[in-house]
C-alpha cells in the first residue's frame, strides 16, 4: 500500500501514488455506499471526533456519515460556540480532547495553519477539514475522484477554476492536486480575487471568462466567500454574475462535453446560473457530494491503518 501519511493536513504532503491509492480505495466505498447495507468495519472500536471551529453543515455531515459507516464512534464537537468563547486556547482544547483518547480527529478552523499546529500536540490521526485560506484536502480528493469517474482519467485535462480564488482553500488544494497529476490549469476571476504570486504557480490567468473557458474539459466554480471578504473585493453581486457567473452562453465556450463542478453551498445567480447547476448532462455537483463520503471513508480508513501499524510497532518495541 502506498500511503504513508500519519495525518491528512493538506495535498501538499501527498505524492501522486498516495493520491491514486486513496482514490482507488474510495471507489470501493462508492460501491458500498450504493448498497442497502452500507456498513464496513474498518474503524470498528475507534473513536472519531469532529471538531469544527467554523460552522459547517455539509462537510461535517459527510465526515460523520463516513465515520459511522466504517463503524467508528463519532462525536461532533460544536467548538464554534463553546469553550473558545470562554477564552480557552486552541491547544488547550486539543489537549483536552486528546485526553479522551480519540483515534481520529477531524478539524476545521478559520485560521490558516491552525490544524497543523493542533496536529503537533495530539497523538491521534488528524484530518484537516479546512483551515482558513490554506487547504481543504478532502474536497480536492473528492473533486479528483469525480473528475476521474466523469472523464476516465485525471491527467492531461484542461481544468478551469473560476471565481474567488484568493479566499478559497478549495482552490489551493485543487491547484496542488491537479498540478501534481499533470493537468493544464487555468484560473479565472476578477484581479481582486486572484492571489498574489499566482503568476508564479504554473497556471494560466484569465480575467475574461469566455477566453478562460475555451476548450476546458472541467469547469470548477467556486463559491463567493462572502464571510471571508472584509469589504470591497467586487462592486456588486449582479456585476459579478454578469462577468464571472456561469451561464449557458459562457459554458458554450468550454469543450462540448465539459463537466461543471461546485464545492457547494451554491449562491445561485451569483456565481452559477440555477439551470446549469441542475443540468444533469453537465453538472456533477451531486456526484461531488456522493464522492465526498466515499473519499472521506477512504481517508479515515488509510489513516486508521497507519495508526494501528504505528501502535503495533510501538507495542512490539520496534524503533521506527
Amino acid at each position: 500500500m502506498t500511503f504513508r501519511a500519519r495525518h491528512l493536513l493538506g495535498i501538499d504532503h501527498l505524492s501522486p501514488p498516495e493520491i491514486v491509492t486513496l482514490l482507488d480505495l474510495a471507489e470501493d466505498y462508492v460501491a458500498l455506499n450504493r448498497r442497502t447495507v452500507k456498513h464496513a468495519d474498518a474503524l470498528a472500536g475507534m473513536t472519531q471526533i469532529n471538531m469544527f471551529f467554523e460552522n459547517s453543515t455539509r462537510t461535517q455531515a459527510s465526515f460523520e456519515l463516513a465515520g459511522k459507516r466504517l463503524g467508528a464512534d463519532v462525536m461532533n464537537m460544536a467548538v464554534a460556540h463553546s469553550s473558545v468563547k470562554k477564552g480557552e486556547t486552541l491547544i488547550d482544547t486539543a489537549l483536552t480532547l486528546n485526553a479522551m483518547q480519540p483515534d481520529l480527529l477531524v478539524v476545521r478552523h478559520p485560521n490558516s495553519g491552525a490544524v497543523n499546529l493542533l496536529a503537533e500536540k495530539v497523538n491521534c490521526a488528524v484530518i484537516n477539514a479546512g483551515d482558513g485560506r490554506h487547504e481543504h484536502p478532502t474536497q480536492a480528493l473528492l473533486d479528483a475522484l469525480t473528475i476521474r469517474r466523469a472523464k476516465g482519467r485525471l491527467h492531461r485535462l484542461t481544468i478551469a477554476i473560476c471565481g474567488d480564488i484568493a479566499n478559497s482553500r478549495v482552490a489551493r488544494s485543487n491547484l496542488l492536486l491537479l498540478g501534481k497529476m499533470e493537468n493544464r490549469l487555468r484560473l479565472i476571476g476578477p484581479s481582486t480575487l486572484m492571489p498574489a504570486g499566482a503568476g508564479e504557480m504554473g497556471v494560466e490567468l484569465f480575467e475574461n471568462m469566455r477566453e478562460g473557458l475555451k476548450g476546458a474539459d472541467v469547469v470548477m466554480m467556486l463559491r463567493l466567500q462572502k464571510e471571508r471578504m472584509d469589504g470591497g473585493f467586487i462592486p456588486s453581486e449582479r456585476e459579478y454574475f454578469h462577468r464571472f457567473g456561469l451561464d449557458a452562453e459562457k459554458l458554450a465556450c468550454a469543450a462540448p462535453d465539459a463537466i461543471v463542478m461546485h464545492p457547494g453551498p451554491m449562491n445561485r445567480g451569483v456565481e452559477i446560473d440555477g439551470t446549469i447547476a441542475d443540468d444533469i448532462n453537465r453538472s456533477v455537483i451531486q456526484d461531488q457530494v456522493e464522492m465526498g463520503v466515499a473519499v472521506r471513508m477512504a481517508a479515515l480508513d488509510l489513516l486508521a491503518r497507519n495508526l494501528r501499524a504505528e501502535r503495533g510497532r510501538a507495542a512490539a518495541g520496534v524503533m521506527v
Partner: protein
Amino acid sequence: MTATLFTNARLIDPEAQTDAPGSLLVRDGVIQGIDIDAPEGATVIDCNGRALAPGIIDWGVKIGEPGERHKESFRSAGLAAAAGGVTTIVARPDTLPPIDTPESLEFVTRRAADAPVNIRHMAALTKAREGREMVEIGFLTDAGAVAFTDGVRQVTDTRLLSRCMTYARGLGALIVGHPQDAGLSRGAAATSGKFASIYGIPAVSPMAEVIGLDRDLALVAMTGCRWHADQITTARALPALRRARDAGLDVTAGISIHHLTLNEYDVGDYRTFFRFTPPLRSEDDRLAMVQAVADGLIDVIASFHTPQDEESKRLPFEAAAPGAVGLQTLLPAAMRLYHQGGLSLPQLWRAMSLNPAKRLGLPGGRLSVGAPADLVLFDPDAPFVLDRFTLLSKSKNTPFDGARMEGRVLGTWVAGRRVFGGKP
C-alpha cells in the same frame, strides 16, 4: 584611579572604518587612546587577537515595564544585553501604559537602574499612542527622552502628525516613524506573494512601505523636522529614501537584524517565532537591504527586541503576537552578514553602534579618546548552536532557536566596568 590596558586586540573602529591589531587604554571609565603605554599598575587584559569594538547601541528595545514585567524587566533585559555585547539599550515607549508623560518617563528611568548597561528612553509621540493629541515634547525632552515614536502604530492623521513634526522641529527633537501604510497593513501577517498565497496567510504588499515612507517624507519636507524611519525593509522604498537624503532632509533609517538575515520562506510551516511587523520580505529585498547598509543608505541595524511569552506565540500564525527577542542574538546574527562577505566588521559597527550614538546624541559608539569605555570583546568565528532556553531574557521567542551561529561575546564593559564575561 583605575586603568585597564586591552592588549593584543583586533580593534574595530567604526569611525575610522578600520579593523586592525592594537591595544586600547582605558582609565576611569574613559578611553585614553590606542597603542599608548599603560601607567604603572594598570590591569592588563590580553585579548588574544579577538575583536574589541564599541559596545552595541540597540535602538528600539521593548521592555515589559510597566505592564508586562512577566515578559521582560529592566534587570533581565540588562543581563541579556550585557551577554549580547549591548552596552546601551534605547527602550521603546509602547508599554502598558505607554511612556507619554514626564512622570511615566521618570518611573522607567528609576527602574532602569536595575540594569547593568546604559538605558535611554524614547517617549510616545501622541498621548496613549492613540494618534489624537501630541505629548509634552518639551517636558519629555528635558526629562531625558531621546526620541519620540508611537512604535508600530502609524499616526494616520496627517494634520496632527505635521503639527507634531513642526513642534518637534522647534525643540530639535527626533521623531521616529513607522512607515507602513496602516490601511494596507491591516490584519496582515506576511508579505503578499507566492508564499503567503500558498499558505493562505493574510498578507500586505511591500508597496505599503513605499506609501508610508513617501507620506512621511513629504511631511518632513514640509516641516523640516529631524526624522528617522524605524525599519526600511523593501528595495522599492530605497529610491525615495535616497532622494530625501539628496534633497538635504534630516532623515535616517534603520532595519532589524531579522530582515537582514531571514526571508519570508523562513516562516515555513507557520512558525510563529518568525512573525514580525513589518513581515519578513523576499530574498531579493533582503539582499538589497544588506547592500543598502553597506552603502550607508540604511544607517542603523537593531534587534527590535520584542519579548513575547509562550502563550502569545502558541497560536495560529495570524493570531500570534509579532516580534522576537534579539538582545543576545543581534551580534551572532550580524556575524552571518560578516561571514557571508556582505558587510565588514567596521561597517556593521557603524550601523549597530556609531550611527545610533550620533543620531541620538549619545557619547558611545566610538573608540576615540574621551569616549566612554563601553566595549565588547568577541570572537567572530566561535561557532555554537543556539538553545533558546539559555537566553537570559525572560522571554525565549527567538527565530534562531536551534540555528548554527558564529560569534561569541567574551566580555562586555560599561564605562570601564566589566558587566559580562570572566577571563577572556
